[in-house]
Each structure stands twice: as structure tokens, then as C-alpha cells.
């Protein structure tokens, strides 16, 4: 009997995971809309661009003090991958992407409630491992076949931004690996496996001493806008609005500013 029940529990758990799809499906599946409708409470599932990882986790800690009843669950990944999950029906409350192109796809797909708001902006940095073992001096070095270069996949926001920056500089890069999100590229530099990578300034800062940046003239001309929106099928719309208010309001402004994001 106990064994049968265990088997059933396992099967149901597996079914739920399958039903939700995506790596973080199980947490989203258990989303609790919350009983009280006045005070935002319960679980809020936030799908966010990988480059927001540190800032948003910091923000969740801050919200613990002001909204103790809110439980924020993050799923970080490439913006385009997150939008794809949403269009396939992944249950979530908030979407924050690293560019407007991916957010526009979500809007066009009808999964967004209302108008997305730009809450931060970011620029790219040419990141190298501490000590700059590849003697990288500028964007032109990314065309060097002998250097190990990591760039984001062109269809994901950091890859699109990298392409714009390279185009503007007239450089045809010779990457050795194309990562599906910016954190992957940042880790490769931090580990010393890549000699150079184009990542966001904020990701280079988040890697601390393991990563240095090389000055790129005009890097500030290629700016990525970060929009955030409440989702149309949000299981917890009140909680979602509270989180979006925090992201676009004072707590978000301070935390994102500390991480190196620009104000919108």
C-alpha cells in the first residue's frame, strides 16, 4: 500500500514536471495564488534574463523585509528561451528580458498583460581573464583565430548586442563558442578557458577579481533596454504587480545601479 502510494506520488510529480515543461517547472507548478487579495502574498514566479541574476536575487532579499509574505521564485535564462517557454504555456507571473525584441515577441504572442516598462539599460564590455593572458587590447583581437573567444548566440539579446557592436567597429569576430546566455560566456572567461568574451558590463562586474575589462571605444553607444511586464495568465497578479513596482521603483533603481546598470 505504502509502496503503491509512493509510486503514485512519484508518477504525479513526474507528470506535473512534464506538464509545466522547462527546468523550473516544478516550482512554478506549485504556484499559490494567495488567499488575501489586499496584501500581496504567496509565490511569485519571475522569468528573468540571465544578466539580471545577481541584482534580482539581491532584490528578492530586500523584498523579504518589506513584503515578508511574498515568496519570489526565479528562473533565469536566455530571454528568447524564456519567451519560448511562456508561449508554450509555462505558468509565470513576471517576465524581465534583456532587450525589447524578445519582449515584443511575448507581447505579440499575447502572454503579456499591459505595456512593458523599461527598468534598466546595459552596455557591453570586452571581458578577459584576470591578467589578460591573451593580451587582448581591443575589439579587433576578437578576429584573431589563435585566441579563444566566446560570444553569445546571435538570436539571444547579448549576442544581438555583440553583433551590433562588432558591426559598428567593422570587426568580423572568430568566436570559438556561441553561448545561449551571457552567464555562460562570463563563466568561461572567469575560468580562463576563453581569452576574451563580449558580455554585459554588469556581468563582468559580477565576476569580481576573476575578470578584467578592456576599454572599447563607443561601447556605450550600443545600449540594451531591459523591459519588465506582468504576464496575462499570472497565477498571482497582485504579487506580480508588487514585484514589478519594486523592480521599476526605488529598491530596483538602487540595486540595479549598484550592479552597474544604467537608469532608463
Amino acid at each position, binding site marked *: 500500500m505504502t509502496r*503503491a502510494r509512493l*509510486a*503514485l506520488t512519484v*508518477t504525479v510529480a*513526474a*507528470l506535473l514536471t*512534464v506538464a509545466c515543461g522547462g527546468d523550473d517547472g516544478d516550482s512554478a507548478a506549485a504556484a499559490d495564488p494567495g488567499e488575501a487579495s489586499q496584501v500581496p502574498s504567496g509565490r511569485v514566479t519571475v522569468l528573468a534574463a540571465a544578466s539580471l541574476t545577481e541584482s534580482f536575487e539581491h532584490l528578492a532579499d530586500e523584498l523579504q523585509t518589506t513584503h515578508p509574505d511574498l515568496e519570489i521564485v526565479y528562473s533565469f*535564462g*536566455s530571454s*528568447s*528561451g524564456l*519567451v*519560448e517557454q511562456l508561449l*508554450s504555456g509555462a505558468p509565470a507571473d513576471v517576465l524581465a528580458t534583456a532587450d525589447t525584441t*524578445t519582449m515584443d*515577441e511575448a507581447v505579440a504572442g499575447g502572454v503579456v498583460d499591459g505595456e512593458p516598462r523599461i527598468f534598466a539599460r546595459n552596455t557591453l564590455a570586452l571581458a578577459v581573464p584576470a591578467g589578460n593572458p591573451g593580451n587582448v587590447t581591443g575589439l579587433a583581437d576578437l578576429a584573431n583565430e589563435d585566441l*579563444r573567444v*566566446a560570444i553569445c*548566440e546571435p*538570436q*539571444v539579446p547579448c549576442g544581438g548586442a555583440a553583433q551590433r557592436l562588432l558591426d559598428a567597429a567593422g570587426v568580423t569576430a572568430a*568566436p*570559438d*563558442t*556561441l*553561448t*545561449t*546566455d551571457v552567464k555562460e560566456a562570463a563563466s*568561461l572567461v572567469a*575560468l*580562463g*578557458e576563453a581569452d576574451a568574451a563580449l558580455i554585459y558590463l554588469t556581468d563582468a562586474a559580477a565576476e569580481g577579481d576573476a575578470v578584467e575589462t578592456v576599454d572599447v571605444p563607443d561601447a556605450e553607444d550600443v545600449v540594451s533596454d531591459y523591459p519588465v511586464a506582468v504576464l496575462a495568465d499570472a497565477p498571482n497578479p497582485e504579487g506580480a504587480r508588487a514585484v514589478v513596482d519594486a523592480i521599476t521603483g526605488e529598491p530596483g533603481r538602487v540595486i540595479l545601479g549598484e550592479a552597474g546598470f544604467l537608469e532608463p
Partner: protein
Amino acid sequence: MNPTRRTEDLRVPAGLLIPAALGVAILVLPMAGLVVRAPWSDLPSILASDEVLTALRLSLVTATVATAAALACGVPIAWLLARTTLPGRSVLRGLVTVPLVLPPVVGGVALLMVFGRRGLVGGWLYDTFGISLPFTTEAVVLAQVFVAMPFLVVAVEGALRTADRRYDDVAATLGATSWTTFRRVTLPAVTPGVLAGAVLCWARALGEFGATVTFAGSFPGTTRTLPLEAYVAINSGDSDVAIVLSLLMIAVSVTILVGLRERWIGTA
């Protein structure tokens, strides 16, 4: 065959039937879903696209080289495990089969720490010979060998254990060296087991994702195999390509399993 036995078989308790049906649904529905969602009209053009063909070619080449390497090292490992009384054999068996249950991405991290440019072995390779493995096709093969060779070792060891050892003993009494006995007597006797192991190993290598993306990276033509191409497609919002690639890999897997079925049923 027997009519009374057949009616007995039909009386399946609901306590077994319902969970079994649920289990089958979990296993089969996702694949059926892919077939339903497949962009059938665009299928030929997607299959014939440069990205897919490049990834397919890379996958076939790397999985085949990885299987050859796994055969070269895995058969001797299986022989050591099955035919010798080496001390610490069970520990060795445990160690070489760990990748069977290890998340492949853990294998990728481990490979990066050892063979990466700043790794234990990789650092020496790089400083001495200027060889750096990550982001190369060789790294893809290494990742596949790491993940897939245990399948071959387990299959071959099983075959060696069930094979009749008296032929080996006879060969030895007739004066054959142990190496000749292995080549001329032992190996031919377990050829079906070795082939089955090689096919399983090849299929596992073909489907390798986690260790590959972590250790070898992802670049078209060099390291981006079919599973990586599917992952990139779904993360770039190109679900049609991801579905077609998934169908392609399911077709390969099903073909292999059907090919092996007779053998599996035979040994069951």
C-alpha cells in the same frame, strides 16, 4: 498459446493497470506531442538546411570516433572485470560505471577542471605542447567517451560472464598465449555482446548534451552536435527547428532499439 492462460492474462488488477497506463502516457505522450506539433510541410527544407546537416555530420563523426575509442578501451576494461581476480575489482567496476548515473553536466564540469586550459592535465598539455582541448571537436569526442563508454563496458562484461570459459581453458592447454586466447577464442565468442554494447554506446554518444556543452562549448561545425543544435534552436525561439531535430533523434533511437530488441528479448 494456451487458452486458459490467455484469459488469466486478461484479468489485470486496476491497481496495476492505472499506474501502468499513466506511466506509458508519461513516456509516450511527449513523443506523440512532437509528432503532432511537427512542421511537416517545412520538414524537408529544415532537414536539408546547412545548420542541421552540419550538426548531423558532426554528430555522426564524433559518435563513431567515440565508439571506436570506447571499444578500444572498454573491451579490455570489461575483460579485466569479468575474467581476472584483480584486487579492488568491485571498486573499479563502481568507478567506471559512475558516469551511468552521473548528471552529464557534472561530467562536463569535471572534464573542464581536468582537461581545461587551467586544469590538472590540460594545464600541462597547454604549457608543454600548446594543446588546448575545450572548444575543439576532440573535446566533444572525449565528453562522449566519458558518458557512453560505461554502457559498452557493462554490456561486454555481461557477455564475458555468461560466455563459456572452458573454450579459453582448452585454448590455454593447447599452448595458446593469453593474448592469442583473447583474440582468437574469447573475443569471437562475445562478438554479439560487443556489437550490442557498441550500438548502445554509439546511441548514447549521439545523444550526449550536458558534458559536451559544458566542456566543449557550442560552435557550428566544430562542437555543435544535434542535441546542442536543438537546445540552441529552442533558446533562440526557433521551436520548429528544435522539433524537427528532436524527431530526427527519436527516429535514430527507435531504429536502434528495434534493431536491438531481438537480442534484449533473447537474453531476458
